[in-house]
């Protein structure tokens, strides 16, 4: 009996040991240590704060220089494979201050995937969107749907996966005890957790598809001409501006085939005052890769 126990323990320890080594090897390790990240992050934040002071003191030249340094430091952290919602958010703020709305929105959107419940992020993103020249609206999901499927919109992919794994373990434990102990009331819990697990797995699938299966882009140049075909020889179809968002359907050479959801806001005068009329339409065309940042 003792031999069996020792053998089993040995096997488990070996399995866990090998597993941890596989995890260590398999994980996309950043090329930069956490200490270096913290140092760069702190310096970048300091530069940003000094730039904000410079702006307040109308010392635009110095502020611009500090913002450039801050952006470079945030970008350095990210290019070394270390990602965090805070870094993207701060980088978005830096670009906003620099007047690069497209890059600001791009980084806010990236941050949104990692820290989806952050209220500051939503506020800044809304402000940046309102500052864009095109009053365009991405294909926004109705509020009712957002409230009904709140977990989908409030949790990131990693958080949803953790939730799914937790539900899976609880479900399996319940099945285990139901087999062993045969308590009838366990069945009800088991069904509840099975439904929860199903919803969580489907949510994870949809979320991963939305984030990795479909490419969303943001226009990062001041003015961008969307053409009828992938080349300069094609006639421009319409123009979109810095910060407009698009859905990338395909690509050819240096061109993306994109869909743009455009909601045109129009002020109409009436007796009761100004009313805002919004009509939404989908426009399709080709634009150069260099003009778009992929979220």
């Amino acid at each position, binding site marked *: 009996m003792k031999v069996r126990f020792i053998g089993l323990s040995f096997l488990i320890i070996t399995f866990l040991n090998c597993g941890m080594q*596989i995890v260590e090897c398999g994980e996309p390790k950043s090329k930069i240590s956490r200490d270096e990240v913290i140092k760069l992050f702190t310096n970048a934040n300091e530069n940003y704060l000094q730039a904000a002071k410079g702006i307040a003191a109308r010392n635009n030249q110095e502020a611009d220089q500090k913002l450039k340094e801050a952006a470079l430091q945030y970008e350095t952290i990210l290019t070394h494979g270390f990602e*965090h919602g805070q870094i993207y*958010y701060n980088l978005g703020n830096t670009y906003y201050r620099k007047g690069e709305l497209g890059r600001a929105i791009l980084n806010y959107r990236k941050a949104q995937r990692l820290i989806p419940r952050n209220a500051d992020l939503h506020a800044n993103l809304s402000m940046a969107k309102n500052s864009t020249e095109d009053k365009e609206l991405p294909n926004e999901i109705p509020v009712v749907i957002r409230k009904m499927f709140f977990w989908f919109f409030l949790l990131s992919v990693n958080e949803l996966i953790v939730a799914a794994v937790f539900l899976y373990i609880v479900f399996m434990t319940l099945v*285990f005890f139901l087999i062993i102990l045969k308590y009838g009331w366990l069945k009800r819990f088991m069904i509840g957790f099975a439904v929860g697990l199903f919803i969580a797995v489907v949510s994870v699938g949809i979320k991963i598809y939305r984030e990795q299966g479909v490419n969303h882009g943001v226009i990062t140049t001041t003015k961008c001409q969307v053409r009828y075909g992938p080349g300069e020889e094609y006639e421009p179809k319409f123009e979109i501006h810095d910060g407009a968002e698009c859905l990338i359907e395909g690509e050819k050479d240096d061109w993306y085939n994109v869909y743009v959801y455009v909601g045109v806001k129009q002020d109409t005068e009436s007796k009761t005052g100004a009313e805002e009329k919004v009509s939404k339409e989908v426009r399709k065309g080709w634009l150069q890769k260099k003009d778009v940042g992929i979220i």
Partner: protein
Amino acid sequence: MRKYVRYFGFLISVVIIFGCISNTYAQGINLVATVDRNSLTLSDRLQLTLTIHGTQDTSPPSFPSIDGFTLLFGPKISVQTSIINGAVSVSKGYTYVLQPAAKGKFTIGPSTVEYKGKVYSSSPVTVEVVGAVPSSGSQAPDLGKLVFVELRTDKNEAYIYEQVVLSFRFYFQKGLPVADIDYVAPGTKNFMEEKLGDQRQYEEIRDGVVYNVLELRTALFPMVSGELPISPARLKCNLIIQQRREQRDSPFDSFFSDAFFDDFFGRGQKRYPVERTTGSIAVKVKPLPDQGKPKEFNGAVGAYNMDVSIKTQQVKVGDPITLSMSVYGEGNIQTINEPLLVLNNAKDFKLYPAESNTQITNREELIRGRKVFSKVIEPQKTNLKSIPAIVFSFFDPRAGQYRMITKEPMPIVVEAGEQEMSIQLTLSGNNIASAKQQAHILTQDILPIMTNLSSLRNQADRRYTNPFFIACLSIPAIAVIASFFVTRQKERLQTDIGYARDKRAHAIAKKRLALAKSALSRNASEEFYSSLSKSMADYLADKFNISAASATGDKVGILLKQRGVRDDIIGEVSRCLTDFDYRRFSKDGGTREEMDHSLKLAEQLITKLERQL
């Protein structure tokens, strides 16, 4: 009274009809000579029709000079009057049936008719008479000349973005029923397309034969310069051709072989599938000239005009003025860009991007439309007296030069704007009214950066894609499956006695053999053989789920044989059982070596049986 009303109505109708007819008469007449075919054999007959369009009140036209034909009968006179949307058209036809007399190419000379002192003549028609064509079994008609297609553009040379009309025409001989038309449009790569109107249907005379024409038109806008090809269009259809019926003797046959019944029942009709392909054509597209190109030019090509209007003329500083700039005319209206505002000082007005609304107003002959640009501008100073001049430049391909439309500045009155009130922090009795002023948001700014270092960890990790993580997820599933089988085993052991005895038999036998071993060490032969006998008997009784008393050599032998145990093992088992029982009850316990041998034998036998049962 009612009688007078009726009389009055009749009078008005007569006036309208005759008024229309007199209008038609005033338009002049023409004489047209047509034939039902322009290629026939000596056995065929030719139908010549002389039609006077525009009047019915003339003498018959002169019969033309015709060589190589003899007149069989005629003229058969037909009169036609039609009123479409108030336009009256009248015609009178004289039809002759001619029999060819010789092979060759013949020209039916012009026919003439005199009307109000003026002589009108028809165009000559050429007809070819060939020898008799050897008749095939199916008697398929010559479809080649009955239908044909054409693809053409209204111009062979155009400027880039200039409107080119592409028309596809399907000709089929008049009176020929056509069904199941399937049209494949030509390929127009490098052109922008815009459909022009509905399909047109009209008649056209080609070589003296009247054809019905079905025309589909498309406006094309070349997007690149160079020799741009347009690939062929294709049309498939079925021609419905009436077959000649053989004469039958039966009176019923002759009655029902009437054309009316043929049409009604669809008898005698045969469908001939036909496919026609046009040739490919090319349009030479020239780039827009650089000479004379104004700096305001923004790519519009066509013939345009512009109207400008503003909604309000009296505004305060910072108030919006909606400027409506309507560009209309002929060309690719959808792609034109907004007209330019000529600002003297960039700080005079704050400009917002224009919103546009495009409407195609006419697509009958050419694409004509209107694009309205609504632009909001905000005056920033009080001393502004007018909105800026507006300029729209386009290239006119007909004239081959750039044109510019300039709208002069429109007068406005700009008053000083209201001052923003700051938020009142204290209230006093005197300024309660002013305290009701709404709070204005003076500045808008983004929220500050995040500086939480403790939560700063790499979120790029995708641990869930790791094989170890996925392998770990299988552990609970394995545990569940294992628990299921273990529980089932337990339950069976509790409920199935035979199964339980079978499973425990070996363990119990081992215990008894251990007892025998201990007896052997003490040299207690009776106890030794008792344990040995019991271990063997109990083992076999448990295995076969029988009582230990009934586990005798014979019975066990039969049961072992039923289970397929080898005969030598069965013999050994029987011998052992007998021998152990014998030694147990006899005083001859045997030597120590014999006891050792018996123990080993019993152990080996139990092991062998365990493997085989």
